[in-house]
């Protein structure tokens, strides 16, 4: 069994499970965490390719993804807190009136 194929399969699985979580879970915070899981899957594939090619490009991209993920959480968490203060629930069904 090839190591690269194993790691790529793992990264695909992590990404798909994160996507599944974003679709099927109802809790806003859990959905945010599933998005982080998707980013982690992408990171794993980037590191695998960088390791295979012996170049640092993939690692640079991983660092940029770290920064983007941190910025995303820093903005998303206050928004979630504001939503919860207004409706007193994390359930996604409560926010259907936000439809355009």
């Amino acid at each position, binding site marked *: 069994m090839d190591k690269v194929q194993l790691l790529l399969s793992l990264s695909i699985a992590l990404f798909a499970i994160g996507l599944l979580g974003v679709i099927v879970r109802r809790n806003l*915070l859990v959905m945010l965490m599933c998005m982080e899981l998707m980013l982690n899957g992408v990171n794993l594939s980037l590191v695998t390719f960088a390791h295979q090619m012996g170049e640092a490009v993939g690692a640079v991209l991983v660092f940029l993804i770290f920064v983007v993920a*941190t910025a995303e959480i820093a903005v998303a968490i206050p928004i979630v807190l504001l939503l919860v203060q207004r409706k007193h629930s994390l359930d996604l069904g409560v926010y259907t009136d936000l439809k355009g």
Partner: protein
Amino acid sequence: MINSMLAGLDTLLLLVFAAGALAGAVLMIVLRQPMRVATALISTMVFLGGIYGLLGVHFIAAFQVLIYVGAVMVFMVYVIMMLDPRDPAIQSRFSKLLVPGVIGFVCLVFVLVGATWKGAPAVPTGTREAFGLQQFAVAFLREYWLHFELTSVLLVAAIVAAVAVVKLHRRG
């Protein structure tokens, strides 16, 4: 002989870490309480850090633990502690999209993993020498300095946005 034993140990550790990361991810979907989901995600991230360490990119492993587990997930755990545990969102786990979501998940995994295992990876194998922190730092600041500067712009924008959200709340 010792070399072959070490290689076998490497493979074994890789398999264990991969299985742990996958188990943590599955637990994230199944568990009900947000705090347990956060713990499962933290374990997945630590296992991924172990995998990065096994691949020889130790600085990414360190930053995975420092930034993801140390900063992002601690932030998440604080928010979970601030919330009401009697929230009905915690009682009901899945939305109405459960069946189509699972069908799409199975199709996606089937297609992508099948493509990975069937065809040879189209990536050209390079020198296969593990790159160190020095090589990474030189590439970062010599070739990708523009991205580095844009990153700082993004961080400033995120700080301004977070402050604006809080101010908006205080005024309203």
